[in-house]
């Protein structure tokens, strides 16, 4: 088991029991992390790595597989696009000094024409099963990863080549018919300017090793909050509808046009029309008819990127009217605190729903720039005009509902106690808010008010508090057909006869029974305990489990059997997929099935092509479409790096989002004595999230980690004259934050191509509200976005660390960059990212105000199921 970019034991201790059980049974655990954590203490091998260099490490593993012929030949041959030939004109970063072919400099984006597969006259992809064609994916992989040698890994990541070899040997041996290996990751890999490509690297590695869709294999995202998976599914992402359907944009004039854009002709997504129509039926009921496009017009359209950092910049420009915050403490957990507060101060109103008083609701008086005793140009809380409404929220034990865990299993919970005082659940708040709005607009005939009036809103309310029934909501999500509750998403139609709040969840209320409430499972039983809760889709526990059987449908080995083809199975004895899990494949599709030419939907997927969600049913070693920053992962330095890119001149990932504004300065000069150290951030077991519901308000947790501190190596302590337990001031270009320090051998300076790199570790979960404190470390961060999903890069920035308490409490959000640029021109280190200059945030209102042009960025973010937050 390879744990990389996750502190499994500390952040997921309950899940880690299974890792410990596996280890007791003989599984080897390798932990790759910038610091030796409690996870490392429970691992067989710890490999220290420089933050932000995981693509180089995983690339090294891929190279190891390729040069030592460690890949699982039969799996790769049959189940991946390794043999596909890529279009003429494809060029790799080594040839273009760090870019793939197709970079359009003026637009700061890639044209993906040269990434596509070569097709013959009939449109079939050209393949070379011998892997000898110079442009076949396998050849490109070999070429691309050839430079990721142990020595190169050492020069980039600071990993000793011998240690790398041992790790590579151990992990790549977990492959083949009898063995599998899994990779666990979390936000240590995602919160980077290359977050998506970090995970993509793992995809390439695991496909090569044949570790996908098989028991004991996989790439496991250890998802965050108890219900973050459920939140993503249904969803809280600004650009998605439930079930990962893309939201319509302003260009999607009608339903047909929208479906044309988002549905794929082959593979799973061919069913999109049925899902979309059923979703609209769930939302609008009888009002949704074929004639009115199922009320498609009632739905809001995306006009740009409305993700949080974009909005954050817009707020700072005064372009946002108000903000509602529920169940999140952005002041602490989101990056660049002073920029946020400067934006909040320009809002007219803010609504906060939370369990306790949090920094976000107190932004007008908490935050370093309010300090009265420092300088005259500090801010007086009396001058803050934003009106803040704080609503008490009911906690999880005070309401019923479900949690969806990291394995997509919905687990229902009942209400244990009645919420105190005025505290109410989210459901209550939303329901009664909508009910009041409907009252207000009841007599309106104005078209713009119709969405409010047309929506179905008939949930039962129960009990003394008029609590809407969560069961009703689940039933709506689970879906109805003419004959009552649906049992499988296969029953969804695009003709308006079915409804479902999320196609993924159809079946959770089959036969009117709440399957999420089921609690039958035998611990230690082989298989998937299918009666414990309910996993979407279709109660499948292991996605792509068709790959657990060989092309002929037999388990790769007895020990690794999950599902298999039973010749005489099925109701009519015509053969069926059977086994320990719900098959992730058409149940009656024989391994020998070959699609007719021109077949559509899943009919176009052959019986030995396990990856049903892909248009060609194959595991994508090469990604032709869907990524903005390259068809293969390749190493770039973090935006704020301490070393030059060893591979080519292109320093940073090209297609990232960045905001070049005075209140968001970037430090982009390696070998700069002003900010010589790398900072990475993380959690502690004893703290949770922003700390507001755990350590800072619960004294039993507070006493365990009572104060903000950072962790440094004894060598760094010596270098800077820092004493264990003393005060230090951490400085970035955005802020200076004082904290205590823990000097520990668990951090180690790394040798990176002749440089000594010191990593500083900082748990980010402190703030100024509550009983224990310290400044919120995210004050130090910048806003900058990953190319595909705009995730912030908070796991690798540059800082300085000096002994003593803070001297100047300056903040970039109010004071601009905290240090002048060094003398002379800072080296131009790379091509520009997709910048969003001041006043342009993808928010139409702001663009209007500034009289700017429409944003060049298309608003289609590629959030994938399983992206971690």
């Amino acid at each position, binding site marked *: 088991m390879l744990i990389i970019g996750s502190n499994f034991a500390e952040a997921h201790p309950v899940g880690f029991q299974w890792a410990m059980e596996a280890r007791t049974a003989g599984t080897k655990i390798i932990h790759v992390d910038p610091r030796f954590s409690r996870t490392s203490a429970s691992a067989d091998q710890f490999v220290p790595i420089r933050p932000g260099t995981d693509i180089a490490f995983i690339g090294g593993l891929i190279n190891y597989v390729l040069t030592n012929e460690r890949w699982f030949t039969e799996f790769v041959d049959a189940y991946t696009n390794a043999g596909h030939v890529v279009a003429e004109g494809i060029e790799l970063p080594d040839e273009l000094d760090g870019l793939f072919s197709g970079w359009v400099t003026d637009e700061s984006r890639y044209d993906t024409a040269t990434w596509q597969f070569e097709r013959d006259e009939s449109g079939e992809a050209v393949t070379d099963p011998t892997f000898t064609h110079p442009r076949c994916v396998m050849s490109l992989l070999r070429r691309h990863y050839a430079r990721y040698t142990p020595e190169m890994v050492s020069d980039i990541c600071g990993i000793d080549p011998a240690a790398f070899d041992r790790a590579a040997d151990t992990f790549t041996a977990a492959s083949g018919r009898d063995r599998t290996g899994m990779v666990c990751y979390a936000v240590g890999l995602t919160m980077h300017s290359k977050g998506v490509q970090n995970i993509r690297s793992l995809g390439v590695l695991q496909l090569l090793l044949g570790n996908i869709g098989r028991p004991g294999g996989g790439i496991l995202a250890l998802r965050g909050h108890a219900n973050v998976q459920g939140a993503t599914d249904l969803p809280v992402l600004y650009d998605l509808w439930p079930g990962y359907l893309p939201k319509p944009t302003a260009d999607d004039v009608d339903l047909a046009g929208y479906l044309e854009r988002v549905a794929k002709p082959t593979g799973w997504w061919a069913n999109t029309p049925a899902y979309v129509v059923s979703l609209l039926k769930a939302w609008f009921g009888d009002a949704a008819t074929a004639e009115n496009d199922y009320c498609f017009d009632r739905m809001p359209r995306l006009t740009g990127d409305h993700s949080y950092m974009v909005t954050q910049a817009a707020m700072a420009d005064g372009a946002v009217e108000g903000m509602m915050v529920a169940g999140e403490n952005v002041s602490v957990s989101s990056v660049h605190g002073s920029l946020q507060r400067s934006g909040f101060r320009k809002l007219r109103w803010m609504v906060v729903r939370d*369990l*306790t*008083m949090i920094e976000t609701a107190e932004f007008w008086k908490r935050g370093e720039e309010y300090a009265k005793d420092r300088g005259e140009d500090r801010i007086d*809380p*009396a*001058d*803050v*005009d934003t*009106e803040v409404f704080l609503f*008490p929220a009911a906690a999880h034990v005070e309401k019923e509902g479900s949690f969806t865990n990291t394995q997509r299993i919905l687990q229902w919970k009942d209400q244990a*106690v009645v*919420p*105190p*005082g*005025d*505290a109410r659940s989210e459901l209550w708040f939303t329901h009664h808010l909508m009910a009041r709005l409907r009252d207000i607009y009841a007599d309106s005939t104005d078209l713009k008010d119709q969405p409010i009036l047309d929506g179905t809103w008939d949930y039962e309310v129960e009990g003394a508090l008029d609590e809407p029934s969560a069961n009703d909501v689940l039933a709506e999500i689970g879906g109805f057909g003419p004959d009552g509750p649906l049992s499988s998403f296969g029953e969804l139609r695009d003709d308006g006869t079915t409804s479902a709040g999320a196609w993924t969840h159809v079946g959770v209320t089959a036969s009117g029974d709440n399957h999420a409430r089921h609690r039958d499972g035998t611990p230690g039983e082989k298989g998937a305990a299918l009666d414990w809760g309910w996993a979407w889709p279709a109660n499948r526990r292991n996605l792509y489990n068709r790959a657990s059987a060989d092309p002929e449908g037999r388990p790769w080995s007895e020990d690794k059997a999950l599902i298999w083809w039973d010749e005489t199975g099925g109701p009519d004895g015509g053969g069926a997929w059977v086994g320990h899990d719900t098959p992730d494949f058409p149940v009656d599709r024989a391994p020998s099935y070959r699609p007719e030419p021109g077949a559509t939907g899943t009919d176009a997927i052959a019986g030995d092509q396990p990856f049903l969600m892909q248009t060609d049913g194959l595991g994508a070693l090469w990604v032709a479409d869907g990524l903005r920053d390259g068809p293969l992962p390749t190493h770039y330095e973090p935006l704020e790096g301490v070393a030059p890119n060893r591979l080519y001149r292109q320093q940073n990932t090209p297609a990232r989002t960045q905001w070049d504004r005075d209140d968001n300065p970037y430090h982009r000069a390696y070998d700069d004595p002003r900010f010589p150290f790398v900072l990475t951030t993380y959690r502690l077991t004893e703290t949770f999230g922003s700390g507001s519901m755990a350590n800072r*308000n*619960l*004294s*039993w947790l507070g*006493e365990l980690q009572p104060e903000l501190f950072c962790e440094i190596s004894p060598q760094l302590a010596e270098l800077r004259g820092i*004493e*264990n*337990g*003393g005060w230090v001031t951490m400085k970035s270009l955005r802020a200076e934050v004082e904290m205590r320090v823990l*000097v520990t051998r668990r951090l180690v300076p790394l040798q990176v191509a002749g440089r000594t790199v010191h990593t500083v570790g900082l748990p980010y979960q402190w703030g100024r509200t*509550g*009983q224990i404190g310290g400044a919120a470390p995210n004050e130090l961060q910048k806003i900058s976005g990953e190319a595909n999903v705009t995730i912030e890069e908070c796991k690798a920035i540059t800082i300085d660390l000096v002994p003593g308490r803070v001297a100047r409490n300056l903040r970039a959000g109010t004071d601009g960059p905290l240090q002048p640029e060094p003398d002379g021109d800072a080296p131009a280190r790379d091509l520009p990212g997709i910048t969003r200059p001041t006043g342009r945030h993808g928010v139409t209102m702001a663009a209007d105000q500034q009289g700017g042009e429409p944003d060049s960025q298309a608003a289609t973010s590629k959030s994938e199921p399983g992206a971690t937050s």
Partner: protein
Amino acid sequence: MSRHDQRPDIVMRHPPGSWQALAAGEFGSDGRNVDTRRAELSGEGAGLEAGARVGDRGHLGDASQTTVAEEVSKRVTKQSRWTWEVPAYFAVGGMAGAAATLAAGALLAGLGGDEQRLVRSGRVIALGGTAVGSVLLVADLGRPERFWHMLRVWRPSSPMNVGSWVLAGFGTASAVAAVLGRSRNRRLRFVGDVAGLTAGVLGLPMAGYTGVLLGATAQPAWWHARRWLPRLFVASAASAGAGALELIPMSPDEERAVRIFAIGARAADLAVSKAMVHDLADTPEVAAAYGNGQAGRRKKLAERLTAGALAAALVSSKVRAARPLAGALGLAGSFATRFAVMQATVKPGGT
């Protein structure tokens, strides 16, 4: 004027059980995170007060550069939570015991004629010592009102329990002896004398059990000295008992008896003290516990005082004024001994 000025300040009203009260940390603020208005406090530790331990934990100064292993290993056994009352009781109780024994001896030997000054003052000292000692002992209890729980059970494995019974018997006997022993009624006086003799017998364990008690703990400094502490304490008690009597003028034969006893006791005290240090040399940490720091300083003081008391007692047959001086020094030496021993603790533990 900003909008802010027109708005009333945020008013936080906290009706019982309200969310705002929770938010303001009004309950749960006692470090237990339980809203007492919503939940019953019935856990075992529900009555304990929060935050009372802060000062007890390792703090920054000693943290720098020490490894955790070193740091924590100092804490294998706990320091005693006894305060000054306990060593003071040890001294007072020991003094009382020895005085009672001397008084009983004098009674049997028929010293002091009709006046019986030694017998009587011995009994009074015994009674006074018990009274003061008991107050000290009770004062040190965490729950003084439950002092009598000491006599709830008979637990021979516990010197503290045995000692409590001894103290109870000794105190009763001393009281009876002190009161009835002066009665004009012959029968009552007889009862008083029997009580006096009983107190004399119980005075022996009174003088010594505290040494056994300390030796029967897991504190390395005491446990390693378990064969010496009873001897030291008996000698010290004898010196103090004699010392208390030396403060009171009596007949020459009584004074002589007390003086001879005092000389013997003090010589024994000094000898035991030296022998103990010598014996503990095998375990240097333990020897150091008695030799260094405040314990060491007190021990030295005790030895000097006792030696002074010995010298004074020796000359007191010639120089009368030296007699009360010897008594005072003897008492002081005994107190110093108990406080020294109480202070002795081994840092890096392990028994």
